[in-house]
């Protein structure tokens, strides 16, 4: 699709890192808290461990979240927090998507 229809251009410019449903869910959860443990993120999103790890890695590479490694006693605990960049990206995505929706789809 080299020559895209100009009407479709806004859809094509959506941030694909955020647009993927699992990553969108992850960012939504992280945006609602300061820091979230892997276990809770897994339960609330319903993702498997492997899937969640893969998506969080992609988001980390994009600079949208940061991983916090700590120990509770001797047990390693992995938590995540959304970065400022991630918050901006999520907000921009919402705004962009809302603009693309037909009137009856907007809330």
């Amino acid at each position, binding site marked *: 699709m080299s020559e895209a229809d100009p009407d479709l251009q806004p859809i094509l410019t959506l941030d694909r890192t955020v647009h993927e*449903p*699992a990553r*969108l*869910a992850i960012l*939504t*959860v992280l*945006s*609602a*808290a*300061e*820091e*979230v*443990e*892997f*276990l*809770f*993120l*897994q*339960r*609330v*999103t*319903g*993702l*498997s461990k492997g*899937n969640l790890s893969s998506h969080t890695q992609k988001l980390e590479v994009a600079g949208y979240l940061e991983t916090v490694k700590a120990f509770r006693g001797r047990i390693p*605990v992995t*938590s995540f927090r959304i970065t400022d960049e991630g918050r901006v990206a999520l907000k921009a995505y919402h705004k962009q998507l809302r603009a693309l929706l037909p009137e009856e789809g907007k809330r």
Partner: protein
Amino acid sequence: MNAMDLSKLEAITKDYAVFQARKSGLATALAGVLVLLAMPLMFLHHDLARHFGIGLVKGLALLIYLAPLLWLALRLACGSLLYRGLGEAKAIPDLAYEQKRMHWIFGIGLALIAFQTNALIGYEQAMLGISRHPESVATMTSLARGTRGSWVWVGILPCFYAAAAPWAIRGVEEARAYAVLVAQALIWIGIGFAASGVNYSRNFEGLYALIFAGLELTMLFWAILAVKRGWREHREYLVLLRSLPVEEV
């Protein structure tokens, strides 16, 4: 991934994080029950001693003095056994709310600490025999004096209450049962030692009786509120857990 409304996802996370910050649903309800149990015991301790012996009353007195710590243990147990299975989620601090409440928290916290200090001084005085009267409300202390470890208690109790002070302030901040329990213990001790060395029956009238009854009613009200709110929070937490999606394979 199971389909879930994004706003619902956000709301669940916020609710969960707020709950995690307190981790006290069932513990709050139990705190209220503790207060409701402790109050009649305080009233009935003379009769209990007469019918069941002084040993039982000494045990009850100790339980009531240690009520705040007992509740701390309950809260920790509830937190680790019931409310940590899904991992932590830290709530975003609500700065506006904290600023708004700061003066109240600070004021009430200071008042509690002042009361606590007064109670402790009274306790130490009574323990050391500076002021005591057989008919005073400080009978509990007089009973404790008879124990072998009374000197140990002179040293240990202030530490217990000093350790509980930050929790008392936190309880006030959250308008939660812990404040009720701490206040309950402190008020009882405070009244006991304020009245130490004076004739109980002669002074238990007029304004004093009115204040006393007012405090009793307040504690009763807080305790019932704690049971109600704690239980509701616990139920809400269970509903929240049920609303979470099942992990995909």
